[in-house]
């Protein structure tokens, strides 16, 4: 591709990136502000980061969020994978279309409705709201995302791999663990990461289903911001951004490296 840097190109790129990243850059810059006022720059300082580590409320909330995300992503991955398997493998049972529709409905369901209906359910059965209820709610809505990711992998899965394993003497369960699972593992891992991220940044559903002692980080940030933004919040957000950025970059570097390796292998194979 040959492109010249016309004035129009430069302007549109700057405008586009500014639109995407200016808010984030501001947030990061002001996390290093000396002043307590978020809008007035008073010199560089890292004191809000130290303050942050003394803020029990925020640290507790972060810990709750991490636990909820870990547990719900893991359970949702198991359930979502099973759902994907059932829907791709047993294509001839009665009401299959209805079932697959129902599994994927939460994808388009407004979060408010999911949250409210779960709240009503927990109240109706007298389930005390807390860590358990948030986790259950997160499993419910992230499971379908896992199912979508895994199902799309299974649709291109070569069934003759499983037949070959059985032909060579492996019973069905052994075949699943020795062949199917390792082959679709990358999809399962991305499903897990998706579920983990969804749980990490969910505010709406958590607000409905959480209770005392189980405040998640997004909820905590949101409630603090309503009392006025402090640079502490900026610091928390900067840390979160750093974690996400490192994760994304690491994943793409790994991917890239694997791709390069694969291409090199393919070329080596052709030469022989």
């Amino acid at each position, binding site marked *: 591709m040959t492109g010249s840097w016309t004035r129009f190109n430069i302007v549109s790129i700057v405008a586009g990136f500014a639109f995407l990243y200016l808010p984030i850059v501001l947030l990061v810059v002001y996390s290093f502000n000396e002043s307590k006022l978020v809008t007035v720059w008073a010199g560089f300082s890292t004191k809000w980061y130290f303050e942050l580590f003394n803020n029990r409320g925020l640290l507790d909330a972060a810990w709750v969020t991490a636990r909820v995300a870990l547990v719900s992503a893991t359970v949702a991955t198991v359930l979502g994978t099973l759902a994907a398997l059932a829907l791709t493998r047993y294509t001839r049972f009665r009401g299959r279309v209805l079932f697959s529709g129902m599994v994927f409905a939460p994808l388009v369901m407004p979060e408010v409705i999911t949250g409210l209906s779960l709240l009503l359910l927990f109240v109706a059965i007298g389930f005390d709201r807390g860590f358990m209820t948030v986790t259950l709610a997160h499993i419910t809505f992230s499971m379908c995302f896992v199912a979508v990711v895994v199902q799309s992998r299974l649709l291109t899965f*070569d069934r*003759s*791999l499983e*037949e*070959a*394993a*059985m*032909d*060579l*003497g*492996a*019973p069905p369960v*052994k075949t699943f663990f*020795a*062949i199917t699972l*390792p*082959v679709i593992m990358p999809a399962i891992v991305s499903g897990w990461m998706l579920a983990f991220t969804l749980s990490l940044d969910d505010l709406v559903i958590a607000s409905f289903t959480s209770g005392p002692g189980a405040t998640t980080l997004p909820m905590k940030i949101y409630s603090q911001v309503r009392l006025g933004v402090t640079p502490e919040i900026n610091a928390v957000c900067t840390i979160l951004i750093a974690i996400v950025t490192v994760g994304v970059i690491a994943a793409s570097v790994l991917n890239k490296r694997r791709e390069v390796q*694969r291409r090199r*292998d*393919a070329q*080596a*194979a*052709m030469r*022989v």
Partner: protein
Amino acid sequence: MKSLGSIRRSFAPWADASAKPYISFENITKKFGDFIAVDNLSLEIFEREFFALLGASGCGKSTLLRMLAGFEAPTSGRILLDGQDLAGIPPYRRPVNMMFQSYALFPHMSVEHNIAFGLKQDGMPKADIERRVDEMLKLVKLEQFAKRKPHQLSGGQRQRVALARSVAKRPKVLLLDEPLGALDKKLREETQFELVDLQHDLGLTFIVVTHDQEEAMTMADRIAILDKGEVVQVATPAEIYEAPGSRFVADFVGTVNLIEGELKERENGVARIEDGQGLTILTEDAGDAAAGDRVWFAIRPEKLKVSAAEPDRTDSNAAEGEIYDIAYLGDMTVFHIRLDDGRIVKASTMNSARVSQELLTWHDRAWISFRPDAGVVLTR
């Protein structure tokens, strides 16, 4: 039928009335919904035979193979292997192994682990597995590729890994589903002979499914030709080619000229066929056709002699026409000749000399002639 002496065979259990078949398909029918893939088919295959199931796609040949492997259950009928009914035995307990068309190599395992997979399922001791894997790698000449993953191999190498994996367990029967389908022509021809040698060395029974008639002719001891879920003919390659049982077989395997006519009389072992347009054919092999029957005279292009001058007609059939098309294929030349009655016949001539003796060219007048034992009479 007259015996065909072209290839003498020492291995021919199917001709021995006391020989017991190793695999029997008995009245097998397989339906997928309303579609009948296999229709009341019976077939017997003998131990150590290299057997080919040949047919166009959708003829039921792969379904037959998959039923033997245990991936599909017949709707009715039964399959016997060495006297044992296979009904209800899952694929992982059958003494057969299959080589898949897509090879189905496990992408996350190295070549040696792919080959060892089946042996591990049998609980073979580790040292024995290693020895067997080494043996298999040597057999398919892939020793230096043991640690590679399938995606690091070329198509031909993958094919050999798939082969090694499927024979590693020394199955009683090896099923091969279009084993050479994904290879290019040159490699395919080499591999055909390698497969035959391998089958001979290991002493296994091979059943190969293919749509490529040349492949089946080259490799198989016997060929079953399938059409619409039924067996049309089972015979050796030479019999299939020289004595096809029907027009379908004659046309499916190789090229053939079919001349429709009426059998007028049979006398002293010679039958006279007239096509009603002035062509009279005298032939020795008229099968079970009787005088008055509607028949098709089938003759292969290489059995027609092409000449510019009128041939001696005392001992052969002849007809005159005009050269309509010529295809030079290197080893031979195929002439398309329009006979004076408008019929087009194909005749091929081996190019045994570098320069053709008779320089026949487009629109020349030419004669075709053939001996009375050159063709066969078909009634179906």
